[in-house]
């Protein structure tokens, strides 16, 4: 619990209603979207502006109290679980769109702004903000920035990092810094903007962001291709890119996902298929039509069993259903759904899926795989039950091997969900001892007393996945 004098100081800054240390508030901020992790914070606070964040940080740093920035708590890496207690700082009250600059095509927003609300707002102004994590109707811009979220459009349009051009942030000691700005070019010193993007709340609290906007695509077209041979699907992905076509979306569902989705949504999918590719291209009408024709030819040359190209918006919606239902279908099968995030070079997708299947069979666990084939970002998803300790241990062992396999195929342990608690033990595998040392030095420069989201990114022990068993 917070010491009474600290609570008083926080109340003096934020007001009585915005400092909560009752059980109800603590319990409801002890978790995020990550299965099975839970730990109670000492208090929950709701700042309203940058000044308040700054003053709060001064108090907390003087008292060496951990502080965990929180958007909507949808992250899947344990990023907002207060493992060492401390204060959860909820950003929801800082949710304004401060400016949309039509001349510079930029927007300034507060971190607690809902991503979907933002994209809808700019769409109405005839502009486009491409990052589209599947959780966008819930997640916040601040959370997206802190996790460097990506989505279905990552292949062609990039991820959150490609759209954040300026930040305002509060350091651990309460200092307010501004990085970047409305400039499209800026090389004055180290790029602190990019450093803060993806820093998972461990370097600073983001209080404002300047985002780049682009003109929306004029036209789009969707198609679905089904393969009896997984390698055919994987070769299609490589060949499309080789032919210098970059689809807006290029998604894959593996056989086990196809079975689950079909059982759930009754789509009449052929169950013997090893993979389905969902492809969407956008841009000018002529180039889209040309690309779709070339992609169709590539699909044929790779022995796709069935190819459907949507002729209307409704038809496109229907084709998208399979991909959209994937998560829902998987989530319904077993009580606990662990959605992971292994990424490989796209030429290695087939190898990775085959590896995942082998590892799942070896450990006798059910793992379905789908994801962003175009950027090699796969989501092997384990279907299990948190109450079955034995099975959970097997799932963990399987994931450990899956990450190992990803790295040995030239990949990484996370493509978009971040390291947090869950991937921390594996980080050293990926970046090596020296990599960790540099990162720790940076962390120390920003946060010498380690109060910003402690227990994340860097693990005490490497190579062991930490899971707090809860009955």
């Amino acid at each position, binding site marked *: 619990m917070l010491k009474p004098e600290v609570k008083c100081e926080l109340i003096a800054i934020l007001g009585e209603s915005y400092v909560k240390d009752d*059980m109800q508030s603590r319990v409801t901020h002890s978790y995020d979207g990550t299965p099975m992790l839970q730990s109670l914070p000492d208090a929950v606070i709701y700042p309203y502006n940058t000044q308040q964040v700054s003053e709060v940080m001064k108090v907390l740093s003087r008292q060496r109290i951990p502080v965990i920035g929180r958007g909507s708590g949808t992250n899947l890496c344990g990023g907002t679980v207060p493992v060492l207690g401390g204060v959860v700082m909820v950003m929801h009250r800082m949710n304004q769109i401060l400016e949309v600059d039509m001349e510079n095509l930029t927007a300034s927003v507060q971190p607690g702004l809902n991503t979907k609300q933002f994209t809808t707002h700019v769409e109405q102004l005839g502009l486009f903000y491409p990052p589209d994590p599947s959780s966008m109707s*819930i997640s916040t811009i601040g959370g997206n920035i802190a996790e460097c979220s990506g989505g279905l459009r990552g292949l062609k349009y990039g991820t959150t990092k490609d759209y954040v051009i300026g930040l305002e942030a509060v350091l651990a000691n309460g200092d307010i810094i501004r990085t970047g700005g409305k400039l499209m070019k800026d090389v004055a010193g180290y790029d602190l903007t990019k450093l803060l993007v993806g820093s998972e709340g461990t370097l600073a609290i983001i209080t404002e962001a300047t985002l780049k906007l682009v003109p929306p695509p004029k036209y789009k077209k969707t198609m679905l291709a089904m393969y009896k041979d997984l390698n055919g699907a994987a070769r299609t992905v490589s060949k499309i890119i080789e032919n210098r076509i970059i689809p807006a979306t290029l998604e894959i569902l593996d056989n086990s996902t196809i079975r689950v989705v079909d059982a759930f949504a009754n789509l009449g999918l052929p169950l013997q298929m090893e993979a389905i590719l969902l492809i969407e291209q956008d841009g000018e009408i002529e180039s889209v039509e040309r690309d779709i024709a070339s992609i169709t030819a590539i699909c044929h040359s790779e022995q796709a069993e069935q190819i459907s190209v949507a002729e209307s918006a409704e038809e496109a919606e229907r084709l998208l259903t399979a991909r959209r239902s994937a998560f829902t279908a998987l*989530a319904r099968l077993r009580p606990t759904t662990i959605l992971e995030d292994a990424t490989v070079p796209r030429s290695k997708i087939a190898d990775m899926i085959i590896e995942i299947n082998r590892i799942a069979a070896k450990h006798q666990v059910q793992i379905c795989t789908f994801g962003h084939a175009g950027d090699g970002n796969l989501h092997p998803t384990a279907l299990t039950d948190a109450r079955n300790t034995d099975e959970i241990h097997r799932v963990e062992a399987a994931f450990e091997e899956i990450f190992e396999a990803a790295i040995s195929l030239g990949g990484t342990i996370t493509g978009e969900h971040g390291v947090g608690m869950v991937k921390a033990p594996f980080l050293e595998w990926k970046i090596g001892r020296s990599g960790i040392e540099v990162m720790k030095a940076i962390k120390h420069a920003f946060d010498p007393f380690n109060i910003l989201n402690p227990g994340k990114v860097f693990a005490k022990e490497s190579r062991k996945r930490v899971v707090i068993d809860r009955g």
Partner: protein
Amino acid sequence: MDKTSEDVRLNSLTEKLRLRLDGDQLTNCMRCGFCLPACPTFAETGIEAESPRGRIALMKAVKDGIMAPDVAFEEQMNHCLGCRACEPACPADVKYGQLIEQARDAIEDHTKTHRGWVKLVRHTAFQTIFPNQKRVRWMGKGLRFYQTSGMRTLARKTGAMKMFPKHMREMEEILPDVAVQGVVEQIGILHPAKGEKIATVALFRGCLMDVLFADTNIHTVDLLTEAGFEVVIPEQQNCCGAMHAHSGEIEGARSLARSNISIFKAAGVDYIVSNAGGCGALLLEYDHLLHEDEQWKDDAMWFAERVIDVSDLLVRMGRLLVFSEREENQCVRITYQDSCHLRNVMRSSDAPRRLMRQVTGVEFVEMKEAERCCGSAGTYTLTQPVMSGQILDHKMEHVRATDAQYLLTSNPGCLLQMMHGINQHGLNGQMKAVHIVDFLHERMCGQDE
């Protein structure tokens, strides 16, 4: 209460919650947060505890022994509207409605937070009046006497109404005039189909519905027979039990369910039609309500499979209704407020809209956030007036923006709340809240010739 007796109360409440709360459903929640944007109380407050994910976490924390079911916990369970918008939004299909009922059921036995009058009102309503259709009628008669005898005028003039809390006063103002007789008393039990018969259906007449909106029941029969259904109205039927179930009086709800099931079973019908989303949703879940009752569960299943909303039945199976092109109906603009239980539990949102679009000379405009709860939610208006009022205010902003002359709904509770909203926001004279059935009936061909 002293410290020890409070401890005893908390302990036994904890025990009861542990027993009642469904561990599987609690584990099924994977905390993805997909339900957050759907939840009206979360939209109003932005506080995690006021969200479905938060409430489930609280229930789980109590079950896991991390937290005591203190007063704040109880209040949070009561803050939930029970609108169940979180259910269709949930990828994992967590049965939130069941969880909240289990929590409330346990709390109801132990609570000390209700003010005396809430308990009294509930007790009288649930144990004495609603279980018995005759008594509901009798209460209706009392209300009618109040409305027509000059007592109402007197009460309003003398300021006697001031004795009641503000929100109750406001509700009293909009209560429609009570019908002298219910649907059966007015038109009888059996109504043959016009033209070739498609199916035989039973009308669930509801309790409040049959007192405050008896005409709507009559109009429902007209629409159904016109569309080709033979309609029976089993006379002995009871209140559905929804208010009981939602306030934690599950046993009361079960006993009403058993009695309704045997009455409708005896009628041997193809469908059981409801015109009140709130009632229909509970009727549809009789199978769940009685799933542990070996003796009744098969019959409950029989019943639940046959329950359907009037709009859905008309759209799915009825003969196309013909609407007249009367001049005075031209250029009427209408909008629609979904009934939460119709939408989220009976999963019917398309059928009413299709029917409205079929009416000639009428322009249907979709209201922003039509799918969001209006804050009525059974007794919520009375027990949580602040939140209810806040939600209603937002709703009325969207209603006003449609510039419609008619605001249609599919449930008596929502209808009353919308009348109340129109009254409160000074929209009287500009727009009218009407049950969709009444609106369709008025425009159906051959009605008032």
